[in-house]
Each structure stands twice: as structure tokens, then as C-alpha cells.
């Protein structure tokens, strides 16, 4: 696997700005009075996941790694989803 020459770094500071903006958006959404609670929750989770994705892809460099490492990195996630969703059905079905 050829090494990647780091002539140009990813836009670390730009990502930082994006993260700060998204955080402020989250706080705005959380305390917004107008919308139903369900919608707020979905928006907040989506914003949090977006931030998490930015950290994973750019700071942890997953965007520039090979597929093998990427698959390894996301492997636990389906299990987490299965566990939480299966047990939630105990209470909401």
C-alpha cells in the first residue's frame, strides 16, 4: 500500500469551524420552542452524528485510509444498533 505524501493536509481548521457552528446550531435547536419534541430529537441526533462523522473522517483520517481499515472501524456499529433497537421493542411495541 503506497504511503500518502502529505503535501497538503486536510482542512483541519475548516473542520473546527464547522464543528463549532454545528454545536451552536444544536443548542439553538434544543431550546427552540416551536417544534414537536420528536422532530427536535431527530434533528439533534442528526447534527451530533454529522459532527461525529467529521471527526472520524478528517481528524481520525478515515477519509484517506483504505477500505479495510474503514470496514474495521465501522464493524461494531451494527451490533450497537441491533442491541438498542431490540431491547427498545420491549417497551414500545
Amino acid at each position, binding site marked *: *500500500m503506497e*504511503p500518502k*505524501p*502529505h503535501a497538503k*493536509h486536510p482542512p*483541519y*481548521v475548516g*473542520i*473546527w469551524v464547522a*464543528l*463549532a457552528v454545528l*454545536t451552536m446550531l*444544536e*443548542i439553538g*435547536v*434544543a*431550546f427552540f420552542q416551536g417544534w414537536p419534541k420528536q422532530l*427536535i*430529537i431527530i434533528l*439533534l*441526533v442528526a*447534527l*451530533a*452524528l454529522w*459532527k*461525529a462523522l467529521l*471527526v*472520524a473522517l*478528517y*481528524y*481520525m483520517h478515515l477519509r484517506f*485510509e*483504505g477500505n*479495510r*481499515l474503514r470496514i*474495521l*472501524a465501522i*464493524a*461494531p*456499529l451494527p*451490533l*450497537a444498533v441491533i*442491541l*438498542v433497537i431490540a*431491547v*427498545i421493542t*420491549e*417497551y*414500545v411495541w
Partner: protein
Amino acid sequence: MAHPAVMQPPAQAEPGAGVYNEKLGMWVFLGSEVMFFTALIGAYIILRFAQPGAWALPGQILNVPVTAVNTFLLICSSVTMVKAFAAIQEGDQRMLRVWLLATVIIGATFVSVQVFEYMQLAHEGFLPGGYVAGSHLAEVAESGVAYKGGPALPESVGLYGSTFYTMTGFHGFHVTMGVLSMIFVTVKAYRGGYTAQDHRGVEVIGLYWHFVDLVWIILFTIVYLI
């Protein structure tokens, strides 16, 4: 720039993950950390579906403004960390040390703010077991009056306290371990232990640090804002 043997997968071996051992090992370890936080965060989500009435509204008990600033600080520390990595990739020893030191300081600050927050909450009467009998919050809850921009506090917050302290506590523990490891890496950097050819330790601690930040990004949202 010449690419050094140690920052590549092992020399005499079949093709594996395509990255050097330490990096692969850290990603594998992070997989286990994902599952650990899944247990804690999953329990929280499940309990919240089971007993929604045991939670107060965002901001009623927890201090969102202070924690929002703390969140921003942790994100900054991720930036300083990745700048440290970028510096040593270029061979810039001075900036490596500067950015690593910054990361240590910000990380330690984050933990201190959290400890302060815990102390505040305990003082108000919010502990892992729920309300402290006779405390300010217990009285507010008992009185049934609307509180801090929301409805009355729940009668019992046992689940709220249990999940809040466990999730944030273990996250804080992980940050602390990260800060200690970071100090070790910083000291080694000051002794010239990393080069443009071999800075595995910096990359690997960076991965751990970003992971801890990532978990906090999730936690801040679902614990403080929902």
C-alpha cells in the same frame, strides 16, 4: 519525503490491513471502546424509553451553558492534537511540542470543569441515586412548582442520576487516561523521541483522543440537550 519503514505495515508479511501494527491495534481497541460505551449509552436510551417520566427537561438540572463551552474546549483539543500530528509529519519538533502541550492543558481543563460540575450538582442535591433527601432540588421537586423555564421536576430522578453520572463519569475517566498518556507522549516529544520518519505514538494517541472527543459529541447531545 521518504516514507519510513516503521510507519508502514510489517516488512516480511502477507498483506494485512495496510497499516502498521500500532495503528491497527488502536483501531481494534477503539472497537471494544465503542461496545463499552454502547452498553452504557444503550442502557440510558433503553431506560429512557422504559421510564420517560424520570427525566427533567434539558437545562433544568444540568448546566448546559458551561458544558457547551466545555464541549467546545474538547473540540479545540482535537484540533490541537491533529495539528501536533501534522507538525511532526513535517518534522517540526517545536510545533509538535507546542500543540501537544496545548492538548494536555485543554484536556486537563475539560476534566476539571467536569469535576466542578459534579460538585455543583451534588451541592444542589443531584447524585447517582437521584435527589438527596432535604436538598434544594428535592424540595423543588416536592413542591411541584414549575422550574427554570420548564414544568415541575420529576418526583424521582433515580434513573436520570444513575445514567448521567455513569456515562459522563466513564467518559471523564477515559479523558483522564488520555491526558495521562498524552503527558507521557509530550515528555517523549520534548526528549526528541519522535521524527518525521517515526511518529507512530503521536498518531496512535491522536486516534484515541479523537475517539474520546467523538464520544463526548454524542454524549453532550443526548445527555444535555434531549
